[in-house]
């Protein structure tokens, strides 16, 4: 049961203005911002993600819901820094070196943010060094995206770099990437689509 039903409904129904109003109203009432995020907004996005995985909603609805959630996050995020909120995990997401495609990567960023993770968007054309910087900055899960068979092989280099570091997990995904490929290069996880990324990140962090 969400703490703030109005906020939960507003995110779920992708109503940007209502989300912002609900967040402001809750803050005015003295609601803890961390709880608003984790107990109302994240469950709403999780529901959207589950419905996407079940084939009941599609990317446009996910985008709309994520944008609505962002309207709330814009208000909440500055306040989270001053609260005792700890994100459920720190994740960095990038499209690998040589690949400039970012639609899939952007969807993953949105869905992970919607799941309550602190997400660093590394952008496109990311060499191993960018993932190293993200790990040095506190990210414990690194997500690699690629659209081309000619660039997906670079993921092996990212995986190889962190293979001996049990604290860092590397997850791969993108149109040409398969479970089999992920296993062959030794990735810690594979997400078939954006909404699955949060589940895979969660499983990695839980050591599954």
């Amino acid at each position, binding site marked *: 049961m969400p703490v703030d039903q109005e906020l939960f409904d507003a995110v779920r129904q992708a109503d940007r203005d209502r989300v912002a109003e609900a967040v402001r109203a809750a803050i005015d009432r003295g609601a803890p911002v961390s709880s608003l995020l984790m107990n109302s907004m994240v469950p709403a996005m999780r529901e959207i993600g589950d419905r996407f995985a079940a084939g009941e909603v599609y990317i446009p609805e996910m*985008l709309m819901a994520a944008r609505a959630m962002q309207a709330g996050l814009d208000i909440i995020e500055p306040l989270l820094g001053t609260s005792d909120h700890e994100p459920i995990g720190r994740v960095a997401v990038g499209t690998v070196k040589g690949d400039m495609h970012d639609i899939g990567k952007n969807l993953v960023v949105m869905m992970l943010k919607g799941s309550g993770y602190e997400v660093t968007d590394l952008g496109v054309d990311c060499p191993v060094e960018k993932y190293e910087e993200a790990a040095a900055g506190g990210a414990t899960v690194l997500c690699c995206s690629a659209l081309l068979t000619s660039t997906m092989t670079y993921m092996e280099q990212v995986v190889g770099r962190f293979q001996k570091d049990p604290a860092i997990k590397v997850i791969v995904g993108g149109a040409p990437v398969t479970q089999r490929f992920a296993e062959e290069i030794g990735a810690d996880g594979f997400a078939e689509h954006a909404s699955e990324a949060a589940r895979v990140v969660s499983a990695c962090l839980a050591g599954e």
Partner: protein
Amino acid sequence: MSSEGDNGMERLYAERLARYTTAMRNERPDRVPIRPFVAEFTARHAGFTCQEVTHDYDKAFVAARRCAADFDWDAVVSNMVYVWTGLTQAIGMRYYGVPGIDVPPDVGFQYLEPGEGEAFMKADEYDELIANPTAFLYNVWLPRVSSEIVPPGAASSYRSNLALVKGAMAMMQYFGAFGTQNAQLRAESGTVSAIAGIFKAPLDILADKLRGYVGLSMDMCEQPDKVLEACEALMPHLYHVAKTTADPLQQVPIGYWMHRGCVPFVSPAQFDSHYWPTVRPIIEELWRHGHQTLFYAEGDWKHHLESFRELPDRSIVYHVDQADVFDVHERLGDKFCLSGGIPNFLLSHRPAGDVREFCKKVLDVVAADGGYIMDASAIMQNDTRAENLRAMTECTREHGVYSGSPSSPPPAPIVAEGSLPAHGGSTTAPGQCIEWATRAATLPTIEGDADLVEEVWNSIDSLGNVFIWQWLLSF
């Protein structure tokens, strides 16, 4: 080459053309035609970098011809590395990542999707697009996609004027070179140029080049009627481009490059309300004029195969990318020729034996009754292994032979009156920029042969139309 050699090559060309067109009409030729969509692979095979074939189309042409000759394929696209950076540099095109400049020299060019707030058309500009798509492209879109060209009202500049002149002349030069390239493919290796002409769906054009995918997704939720109106306004123009660039002999199909019109990029309801109703009439109209369309179904369109069945038998060739080729065969094989379906991952990262095994299965099942063209799923880049392409080719020659007499392609359909609105909602006819009536109003009464003056005006004016619509669709 001796005339006997010439005749031999002509015979080979005729044999391959018959094989290819018979399969495309969903009939059974003498054997399964091989028509690989090889892009940057050609560079690797010919010893060039991606940078070389993207910057120098002569090298790209040489590479395509060398591949066609060395692998002895039935048909190829005469240059699948279609972006020539001489052309894109001429106008300072912003939306390509270019080898050697934006990506490493041996990575293929890539389309750069603008960020949500940086789309080349804004959410409140639908009415302007709908009123006159051609004028919108020149006045609003071109100055935004070009780093050089200034919009109407801004001070004219040396660089802007130069960009327009260089861009137009470079485009003429490039298109002109394709005629020679196709003739050389035919004369040197008897290879058929696989496609002619270009089509894209109105909704894809809005997503790819105008609003961006994210922007369009928002518009589909917030102003769906405007999006539909824009698609309808684009229809006659996109039809015109497809029709006027198609093969006049009606032998090879028009390339239809399908991007994000499928689930989950759109919902099934959006496909039904926006995507399909603004594509289907165009495909039907092209077929009424004898032109097949090659559906390059990028991604997985499995949710929409029933819609495609609404099209007339044989009107399309359906290219299978990430979908299961066996499933597509079951659901579409009785109506249309299929091509592709050999996974690129297999061709790039698996041993030749695996390729051979998969191809054999496709030949046994999908190609059993004809109506199949051997090809990879997606356009092949420079990660494709040559030995795997040889395995695919040899396997087809070995196991793709049909017994008995080959069938002959059925005649082209009878041309009938179409159902497309002539102008959509726009004020300028497809194929024109400034119509004769507008021009004539500025002239004194014409003496002598007024028709000649009008004819020449229309002919030259149409070049302006070709320029802008080709930028939108082909580059």
